[in-house]
C-alpha cells in the first residue's frame, strides 16, 4: 500500500492526497464517458430519399450536400437534410464533382452542366456520347468529361466555359473516372483497361501508368494532392498528381468504394461485407468498423469529414467524421481507462480511509486478518474456483446483461444505445404478439395438465398391480421410448402420425371416417390441438411419482384399506397430499419447459398455418437470427422470465402458506 498510514504525519498531507486522488478519479471518469460518447456516434444516421441516388458531392464550404438522382434532378440538401434547391435535367444524373464554387453535372441526355452553389445554371454543353463521368476546374473555365457510346466508341473531352471543345481524344476504352487537377493545366482519366493517364490542356499525354486490375472506385483530394484508386484485385493505390505511385495496399476483402477525408487526413474503404476500413495517408490501416452490408457508394465531405454512404437503392447513411476518427483510438483508450478508473477509485478509497488514522489502522488490520483467513482455507477456494468462474462468465453475466440489453439498441462490436422501454413497446406492438401469448398460455395449461394427471394415474396403476414382476416390466417398457431422440420423435409425430398419410388419417379411412381425415398440422383450426396431442398418452414423469409413491409407508395404505377407503378416494386424499413435493417439482419444471419449448413449434408448423401456432419463443428466435434485433430479443427473454418467475414465486407462496398451517 503506497499510502500506508504513519500516525506521525499531519492530517493536512493526508487530506491533500485524498483530494488529489479524488480529482483524478472524477477527471478520469469524465474522460471515459466522453470516450463512450464518441463510440456511440459511429452508428450513423439514416436518411431516406425519394428516388435512387447516382452521385454525391459537397459544396466547397461543406454546408451543402448535392445528390445526383436517377430521376433527372440534382438536389442540394443543407446540414439538416432540408432541400435548398433542385435542378432539373432531361436525363438521369450520371456523375457530379465539385471544384471551387462550381458543380459539374453530367446527365444521360448527353449534357454536362455547370452550376454554382445556389443552383444557378451557368452553362450546359451538349457532348457527343453519354458523359459517364465529369470534372472541372476550380474557376469554372474547364469542363472535362469521359463519354461513351459503346465499348469501342469512347471519348475524353475538354471544353471551355463557353462550350467550345478544346480537345477530344480516343482513350481506347471506357473511362470510369476523370479528375481535373488544381494546377488548371492537367486532367486525369482512369479507364476500364486499368490505365491511369495524365493529359495536359493541349491534349498531350504527360504521363501514363497502370493499376493491377479493372478500377472499382477512386477519389481525389485537391488540397492534399492525392489520388486513390481501388481495383478489382482489392488493391488500393495512391498517386500524387504527377501520377507517381505513393503506395499500394492489399485489402483482404472485396472493395466496394473508397474516399479521401482531407479534414482528418484519412482514407476510407468500404467493403462488400460492410466493413468500414480507416487508413492513414501512408496506407496503413488504423482500424475497421463493422457497419452495414450493401453499401455501394461513399462520399466524404472535405470540410468536416462527414461520410455519406448509399446502401441499396436509396438509403443514405451518414457517419460523423470525427466519430469515425476517434473510434479506433478510443477503443484502446477506453479499455485502458476502464482499468485506470478502478485503480484510481481504490486509491481514492484508501486515501480517504487514510485520513482517519485510528480507523485506518483497524481496517487494514481487519483486511489482513481476512486475507489470512482466506489463505488458511485456500484448498476449498481453489477447488470451487473453476465452477465459480464458469458460473460468473456464462450464467451470472448473461443473466444480468440480459436485463440490461433489453433496454438498449445493441449492435455487437459497434454500439449500445439506451432506448428505455422501446424494445418492450416494439414487442407488444407486434400484431402477433398477443396471439403468441394466447397460444403460449394454452400450451402452458395443457402441458401442466399433461405433466401431472396422466403420469400420476399411470404411476398409481403400476403400484396397483399385484405382481411385482409385471410392475417392473411395465416400468421398463414405458421407459424404453426414451431411445428415440426428441427431435426424431417430433418428426415422426409430424409425418408418421399427424401427417396427411399418417397413422390417424389412415386409421380414420380404415374405419370409414375418411371424410374426417385432414392434414392436422396444416389446418388452422386443428393445428394447435394437434400439437397439444403430440406425446399422447403423456406418460411423462410417471417414474418420479412411482418413486414417490413407493416411499409412502405401507402402514398408511393398509390403514386406508382397513378404513374402507376406495382406491380413488385413497389417491385423492392420501397419495396426492403425500407426494405433493414431487407434484410441485414436476409442476415447476413443466411450467418452465413449456414456456421455453421452442423445438415443438419450430420443427412442426413454424408458427403456421397463418399464425395459428405462433409462440413468443419463436418470435424471440427470429429477432435474434433473422432481424438481429438483439434488444427486442432480450426484452422478450425478460418478458418470458417474468412469466416463469411468477410461477416460481406462486409456488413458494403456496409452500410457505402450507408450512405455516
Amino acid at each position: 500500500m503506497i499510502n500506508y498510514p504513519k500516525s506521525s504525519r499531519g492530517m493536512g498531507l493526508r487530506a491533500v492526497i485524498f483530494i488529489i486522488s479524488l480529482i483524478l478519479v472524477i477527471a478520469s471518469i469524465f474522460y471515459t464517458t466522453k470516450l463512450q460518447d464518441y463510440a456511440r456516434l459511429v452508428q450513423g444516421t439514416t436518411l431516406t430519399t425519394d428516388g435512387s441516388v447516382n452521385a454525391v458531392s459537397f459544396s466547397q464550404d461543406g454546408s451543402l450536400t448535392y445528390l445526383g438522382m436517377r430521376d433527372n434532378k440534382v438536389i442540394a440538401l443543407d446540414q439538416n437534410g432540408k432541400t435548398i434547391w433542385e435542378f432539373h435535367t432531361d436525363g438521369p444524373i450520371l456523375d457530379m464533382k465539385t471544384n471551387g464554387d462550381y458543380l459539374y453535372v453530367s446527365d444521360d441526355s448527353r449534357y454536362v452542366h455547370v452550376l454554382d452553389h445556389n443552383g444557378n445554371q451557368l452553362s450546359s454543353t451538349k457532348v457527343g456520347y453519354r458523359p459517364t463521368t465529369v470534372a472541372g476546374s476550380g474557376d469554372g473555365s474547364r469542363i472535362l468529361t469521359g463519354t461513351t457510346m459503346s465499348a469501342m466508341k469512347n471519348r475524353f473531352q475538354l471544353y471551355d466555359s463557353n462550350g467550345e471543345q478544346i480537345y477530344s481524344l480516343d482513350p481506347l476504352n471506357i473511362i470510369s473516372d476523370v479528375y481535373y487537377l488544381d494546377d488548371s493545366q492537367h486532367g486525369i482519366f482512369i479507364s476500364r483497361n486499368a490505365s491511369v493517364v495524365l493529359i495536359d490542356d493541349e491534349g498531350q499525354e504527360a504521363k501514363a501508368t497502370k493499376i493491377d486490375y479493372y478500377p472499382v472506385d477512386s477519389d481525389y483530394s485537391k488540397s492534399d494532392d492525392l489520388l486513390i484508386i481501388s481495383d478489382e484485385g482489392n488493391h488500393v493505390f495512391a498517386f500524387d498528381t504527377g501520377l507517381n505511385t505513393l503506395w499500394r495496399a492489399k485489402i483482404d476483402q472485396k472493395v466496394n468504394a473508397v474516399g479521401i477525408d482531407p479534414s482528418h487526413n484519412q482514407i476510407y474503404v468500404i467493403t462488400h461485407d460492410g466493413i468500414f476500413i480507416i487508413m492513414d495517408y501512408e496506407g496503413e490501416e488504423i482500424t475497421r468498423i463493422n457497419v452495414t452490408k450493401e453499401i455501394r457508394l461513399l462520399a466524404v465531405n472535405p470540410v468536416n469529414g462527414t461520410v455519406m454512404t448509399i446502401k441499396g437503392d436509396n438509403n443514405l447513411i451518414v457517419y460523423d467524421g470525427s466519430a469515425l476518427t476517434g473510434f479506433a483510438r478510443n477503443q484502446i483508450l477506453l479499455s485502458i481507462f476502464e482499468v485506470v478508473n478502478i485503480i484510481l477509485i481504490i486509491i481514492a478509497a484508501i486515501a480517504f480511509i487514510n485520513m482517519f488514522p485510528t480507523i485506518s489502522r483497524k481496517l487494514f488490520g481487519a483486511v489482513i486478518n481476512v486475507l489470512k483467513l482466506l489463505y488458511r482455507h485456500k484448498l476449498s477456494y481453489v477447488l470451487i474456483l473453476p465452477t465459480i468462474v464458469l458460473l460468473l462468465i456464462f450464467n451470472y453475466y448473461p443473466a444480468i446483461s440480459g436485463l440490461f440489453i433489453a433496454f438498449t439498441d445493441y449492435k455487437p462490436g459497434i454500439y449500445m444505445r439506451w432506448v428505455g422501454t422501446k424494445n418492450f413497446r416494439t414487442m407488444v406492438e407486434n400484431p402477433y404478439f398477443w396471439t403468441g401469448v394466447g397460444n403460449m398460455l394454452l400450451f402452458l395449461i395443457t402441458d401442466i395438465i399433461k405433466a401431472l394427471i396422466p403420469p400420476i394415474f399411470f404411476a398409481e396403476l403400476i403400484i396397483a398391480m399385484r405382481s411385482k414382476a409385471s410392475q417392473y416390466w411395465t416400468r421398463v417398457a414405458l421407459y424404453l421410448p426414451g431411445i428415440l431422440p426428441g427431435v426424431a420423435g417430433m418428426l415422426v409425430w409430424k409425418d408418421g402420425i399427424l401427417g396427411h398419410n399418417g397413422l390417424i388419417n389412415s386409421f380414420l379411412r380404415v374405419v370409414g371416417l375418411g371424410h374426417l381425415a385432414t392434414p392436422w398440422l396444416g389446418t388452422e383450426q386443428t393445428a394447435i390441438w394437434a400439437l397439444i396431442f403430440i406425446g399422447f398418452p403423456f406418460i411423462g414423469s410417471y417414474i418420479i411419482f412411482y418413486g414417490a409413491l413407493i416411499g409412502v409407508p405401507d402402514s398408511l395404505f393398509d390403514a386406508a384399506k382397513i378404513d374402507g377407503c376406495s382406491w380413488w378416494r385413497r389417491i385423492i386424499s392420501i397419495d396426492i397430499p403425500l407426494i405433493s413435493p414431487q407434484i410441485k417439482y414436476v409442476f415447476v419444471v413443466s411450467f418452465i419447459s413449456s414456456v421455453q419449448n421452442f423445438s415443438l413449434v419450430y420443427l412442426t408448423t413454424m408458427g403456421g398455418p397463418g399464425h395459428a401456432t405462433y409462440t413468443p419463443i419463436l418470435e424471440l428466435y427470429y429477432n435474434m437470427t433473422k432481424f438481429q434485433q438483439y434488444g427486442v430479443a432480450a426484452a422478450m427473454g425478460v418478458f418470458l422470465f417474468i412469466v416463469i418467475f411468477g410461477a416460481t414465486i406462486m409456488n413458494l407462496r403456496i409452500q410457505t402458506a402450507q408450512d405455516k398451517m
Partner: protein
Amino acid sequence: MLKKGKTERFRGFNKGKGVDGPVAQITIAVIMICTIFIVMLPILITISSSLKTNYEAALGVWSLPKTPKWENWGTGMQNIIGNMLNSLIICVISTAGVVFFSSIVAYVLVRHNFPGKELVFYGIIALMIVPGVLTLTPNFLLMMNLGIKNTWWALILPYISGGQVGAIFLFRTFMSQQPVDLFEAAKIDGASDLTMYAKIAIPLAIPVLAIQAVGTFGAYYNDYLWPMLVIDEQSKQTLMPVLRSLTAQISGIYDEQGVTHAMYLLSGIPLIFTTAFGLKYFINGDFAAGLKL
C-alpha cells in the same frame, strides 16, 4: 351402528375385490398394455418404415415390410455418422465436466468449512430461478464477443457451466447424507482431503452421479435451439439441429423414404446406451425422494 356396518361392508369388499380384485387387475393390465403399445408406436412406426421400400411406404403406415430393406440403415448411418460423432464428443466432454466439477463443489460444500460457504451455495442455487430463455440472447452475444461463436467452445463451455447448477444441488443433498463417521475415520488414518473425495464420497455417490450423467448427456444430445444459434457450419454442427435438413438433403439423392426413417431411428443409438446404463438407477424411482420443491 350404521357407521360400523358400513365399514364392515367396505372391508369385506376390499379383501378380494377392489383394486386388488381380479376384475380391477385385468382392467389395469388391459389399460397398461394399450398404453405401452401407444407409447411404443412412434418407435414401431419408425422401425417398420425404415425397412420399407418406396412402394411399401406408399401402401400406408399400417403395412409391414415384406422383406426388410436393411440397406436403408446403412445408407442412413453413413449420412448421420459425422454429425453424430460431433454430438458424442461434445456431450461426453460436457457431461464429464458437469459431473466432475459439480461433485467436487458439492463435496467441498458438504465437508469443508470456510468463510463465505453459505454465500457460495446460495449464489449457485439462485441461478435455478434463471431460465435459459432470459440468458439466451445475452449468452449468444457473449459467444460473439468472446469470438468463440461457430466453435465447439460455444457449446461445451456454457453446457458445463449451466449443467452444474442443478447437479451441485442434487449431489450436495446426496453427499450430506453420507455418514460423517466414515470421513472422520479416514482422517484419523491420515487420508488426505482429495483421497477422501475420490475413495469415499465418489464411490458412495455413484447412483446419483450416474443419474445426473445420463440426464445431462440426454439433455445435451437432444438440445436443439442453442447449437442451432451458435454453430453456423453443418460440418461442425451437432446431430439434432441438422437431422431434418440431413433427411431433406438425402431424399433428393437416394429417393428412398425408408432412409429418412432409418436416420431418425439411428440418431438414437447413443441414447440406447445411456438408457440401458441408466435403467438400473432410474427404474426404481429412488431418486424421486430428492426431487422436492
